[in-house]
């Protein structure tokens, strides 16, 4: 699951995952509220799917990424999903915060394409564990 509001970033993330040949079903959520709703629905319906990995942008409209993470970790069914926190910010404070909330990894969004592709590698590596 990719929680990201910026379509430009969505495109590049998709490209990166493709390039790295990540074999997974991709679902896209545009804001924090929608993400939370997804988790609630999953809890309610045992048949609903849970993501194996969440790419979570910190800077989201409505509900921030940190809130979403915190909420998710509290849910019954999807609480244990892998989470990569993704952000244009690179401050130690943010890294710490996300780690504290339960993120498994932190990815700083680069401004070059080449750098961005590394995200794909990272995802592939995590999924294979």
């Amino acid at each position, binding site marked *: 699951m990719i929680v990201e509001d910026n379509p*430009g970033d969505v495109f*590049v993330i998709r490209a990166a995952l493709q390039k790295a040949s990540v074999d997974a079903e991709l679902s896209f959520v545009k804001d924090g509220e929608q993400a939370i709703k997804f988790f609630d629905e999953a809890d309610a319906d045992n048949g609903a799917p849970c993501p194996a990995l969440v790419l979570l942008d910190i800077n989201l409209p409505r509900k921030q990424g940190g809130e979403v993470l915190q909420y998710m970790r509290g849910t019954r069914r999807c609480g244990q999903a892998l989470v990569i926190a993704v952000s244009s910010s690179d401050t130690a404070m943010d890294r710490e915060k996300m780690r504290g909330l339960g993120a498994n990894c932190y990815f700083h969004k680069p401004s070059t394409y080449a750098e961005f592709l590394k995200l794909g590698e990272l995802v592939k590596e995590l999924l294979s564990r």
Partner: protein
Amino acid sequence: MSGMTAVGVSALTAFVARGEASNRVFQEMMDALPVSIYTTDAEGRLTYFNPAAVKLSGRVPQLGSDHWCVTWKIFLPDGTPLPHDQCPMAIALKGGEVPTGIECIAERPDGSRFWFTPCPAVLRDTEGRIIGGINLLVDITDRKNAEIQAQEQFRAIVETTPECVKVVAPDGTLLFMNSPGLTMIGAASAQEVTGRNVYDLIAPEDRDRFREFNESICLGEKASLEFDIVGLQGTRCHMETHAAPLRHIDGTIVQLAITRNITDRKQAERTALLLGAIVDSSDDAIISKDLTGVITSWNKSAERLFGYTADEAIGRTVANLLIPEDRQDEEPDILARLQRDERVDHFETVRRRKDGTLFDISLTISPVKNAQGTIIGASKIARDISDRKRAEAELLASEARFRQLADSMPQIVWTARPDGYLDYYNERWYEFTGFARGTYGDASWEGILHPDDVLKCRETWYDAVQSGQPYNIQYRFWNRQEGGWRWFMGRALPVRNSEGTIVKWFGCCTDFDDQKRVEDDLRRVNLDLEQFAFSASHDLQEPLRGIKLYSELLTNMYGERLDSQALEFLSYMRGGATRLEMLVRDLLSYTQVTKFEKSVEDSDAAEAVTLALANLAGIVEESGAQITTGPLPTLKVHGTHLQQLFQNLIGNAIKYRSPDRTPVVRVTSERQDGGWIFAVSDNGIGIAPEYRENIFGLFKRLHNSDEYSGTGIGLAICKRIVDRYQGRIWVESEPGRGSTFQFTLPF
């Protein structure tokens, strides 16, 4: 027969004895003689007596039966009865030697007594046998009475005088001493000492002197002597003796002396000398005068103080000599008080010296009494208090100067005692508070303070008072003119004396309300600005990233389908985005300079340089720059700030290198008063003099981005950092040769 000597009488009786006793001529002669004569037979019975004898004895003896003295009671001079058979006539008749010069007392039948000297002689026949005696009685009563009276008078004189009267033999034997003398030497009676040697009673160290003295008196001289005796009990007394030679009965010359005990007098003399010495050595002038104000004594210090010698001063009056004209009425007043037995204590006035100069003086005057308790004069102690008066005057003057200064200052000025009690406020205080004058202490200032500040103020103030550290506080005073509270800054410093003890606090309250509000506003604005800058730069980064990414993607994915112009446009776009990114990052950096609020620990400048060089690794390698450093210190500046400084300056040094030569950059430091001075020098293109100031401004660039890349914020960031530490930054440069950037930072 008073003119007759004993020899003469004996000659007469001898003569008569040789003649015939019955010769009528002789009998008539003997009857006529005024001296008592009688004759006896060999057994002592009276054979004849003359009328003078009857008169003397007081009865008519019976011839033939009465013995010579049978009716008389005879006594020796000392009063013991003399038996008849031992009287001189009896002894002579028995054939004994005729005693001469004996004095006896006889008692008549009527009880009266008389003194006589019997002059007996024996009558012998041709064979030498005693056939009778003849006795002549010399009436010595008058003479004896006179003698006795004289003796009594002498004894009376000698015993009633309080002095010791003594008679001493040439060898020192005591022949006589009267009762006062016996008391002086500690003898209970004359027997104890008469006949002993006086030298034993004299103190050992004076014995030789006394011996010489005694001997010269006994040679006929009159003299006096002072000496010590130890007496019989060992009590030492000081004696003064006046002695004269006296002819003793046996013809020798002895010493007659009158001696007095002068121990007390000597003690008094010593005390007087001591007191005199005390008076003379005193630092204070001590003067005595009589009740008319005439000076009677004048010590050394008085000479020093007034300039007159004792000779010049004694006999003159105090009023004349010492008191200036305008104070003449002080003397009668003082004398009157003395008459009333009142003391004058520490009376401060002015007196005049010999040279005419006036000076301040403190007088203490006490009445002086004689032994009966009558006031006979005064003793005066005078002390020059000119110095003290001058110090007092100066103190008053300096306090007046202080008040003048304090009242002219725009601040509120106050002082406090060492214990923290506020004891003075200047005019500003009263103007501002409207309080009444005369109130001091805690109550006097608490009323003006904001209630929230009262406790803190009291605590802070008394902490300072106890510790002696400077007092510093900010508090609010009520502004009664316009209402409302105004912020004041209170400061005080202690004033210490030469021993380091605090003697006073000087304090000041300054109205800094306007500044404070400005400060508060400024602080708030800065905070807002920082937050704004932070979030702005944060938010700006996102779209920037987008631009860069997609222009890159565009180039990569559609590059072949685009013509060279389109590609050029794209590169400009990407360039712009990159620049914008750098700008935003630098802006963020700029706003973050003042972010660290907590205190600074030590950081290593050398380490900062290393980190900076690591970040500059790319251009260092690319340019082949040679970077050297001198010894660099540790200092109390945030490591990040140091790193930014070096990174910007070294980066600039490499960036603005000369195309002709390899860039050489040198980083050095030097210790100065108050801090470190760092220098980053290069051999680059240099900076023209007119731009040396404004290159530190925000966004100021001397070159466009074609020639040298850069945001124009780098040096502004450096200046902001240096300013934060109250340092300075500047550049010295020679265009075409190179530049040296220098900045100062604290220890």
